[in-house]
């Protein structure tokens, strides 16, 4: 069942699927992402319903800063790519490469999060506080839920990195890396919709 070989040479090409536990984890995580789709879908619906209700506050068009969003998008997209590289390194049993790419992913994610915090702070100074209007509440909730997912992902990848460092790549750590990769892509996909629906459409009017 769960044999815990520490010898890298014996790892199969896809160590994440070597054990039943690993396969369960992956199946379950896919399902979880299906649920997350509904979660974000509902948040988007709430945002779209309420985005016209700006009351006395700034409108989306006045608020959003293009360069900032473009930069954030670039960061997150790239981090998605680097997480793919991490997985590829894993499949070659290249632990160094794996950890390296994970760290790059971590840094890019952290930069994204930093940017988002800066952005929120900036908006608050413009009078766009959480409680200002239905638009602001739904905006912060949608984008904030995404940001919280990023933050959680960062903590998670740190934990995985520590485990990789201590225990190396094996059939317990591999599924974790793989599942994290799925999670990270999912976050990226959600962001695609956020920049489209929130920022770009907000700019259009």
């Amino acid at each position, binding site marked *: 069942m769960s044999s815990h070989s520490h010898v890298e040479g014996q790892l199969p090409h896809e160590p994440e699927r070597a054990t039943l536990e690993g396969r369960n984890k992956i199946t379950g995580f896919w399902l979880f992402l299906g649920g997350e789709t509904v979660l974000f*879908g509902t948040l988007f619906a709430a945002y779209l319903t309420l985005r016209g209700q700006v009351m006395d506050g700034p409108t989306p068009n006045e608020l959003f800063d293009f360069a900032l969003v473009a930069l954030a998008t670039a960061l997150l*997209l*790239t981090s998605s790519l680097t997480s*793919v590289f991490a997985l*590829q*390194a894993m499949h070659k049993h290249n632990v160094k490469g794996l950890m390296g790419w994970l760290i790059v992913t971590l840094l890019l994610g952290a930069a994204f999060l930093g940017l988002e915090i800066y952005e929120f702070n900036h908006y608050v100074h413009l009078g766009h506080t959480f409680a200002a209007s239905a638009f602001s509440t739904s905006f912060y909730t949608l984008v904030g839920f995404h940001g919280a997912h990023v933050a959680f992902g960062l903590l998670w990848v740190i934990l995985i990195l520590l485990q990789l460092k201590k225990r190396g790549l094996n059939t317990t750590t591999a599924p974790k890396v793989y599942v994290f990769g799925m999670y990270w892509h999912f976050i990226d996909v959600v962001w695609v919709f956020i920049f489209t629906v929130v920022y770009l459409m907000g700019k259009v009017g």
Partner: protein
Amino acid sequence: MAAANEQTSHRSDVKTTKPEGSKKHIIAFVFSILLTFIAFALVMAGEINTDFIYIMLVVLAIIQVFVQMAFWMHMKDKGHTFAIIAILSGVVVVFTCVIMALFWTTW
């Protein structure tokens, strides 16, 4: 056009350090960036019919998601039946419920 610069520079970054066998991922990435760029450009261009832009934006986003899911999340590979069912069901729920609800709350 700071945004575009930002993105292209990232792309060249990546190319120099690409590991072996990752060509299709790079292509997917370039494709993503391109799609994103078009979306941004469309909005920046202004002066276009807003309904058209809305539709285009959504189409672009959907294509992009499709690309990422297929390549990066391996959904096109075999053994992903339940992955596809899960995500697809989620999408169906979102489309039927969420979009319809939206329709009746806003219009």
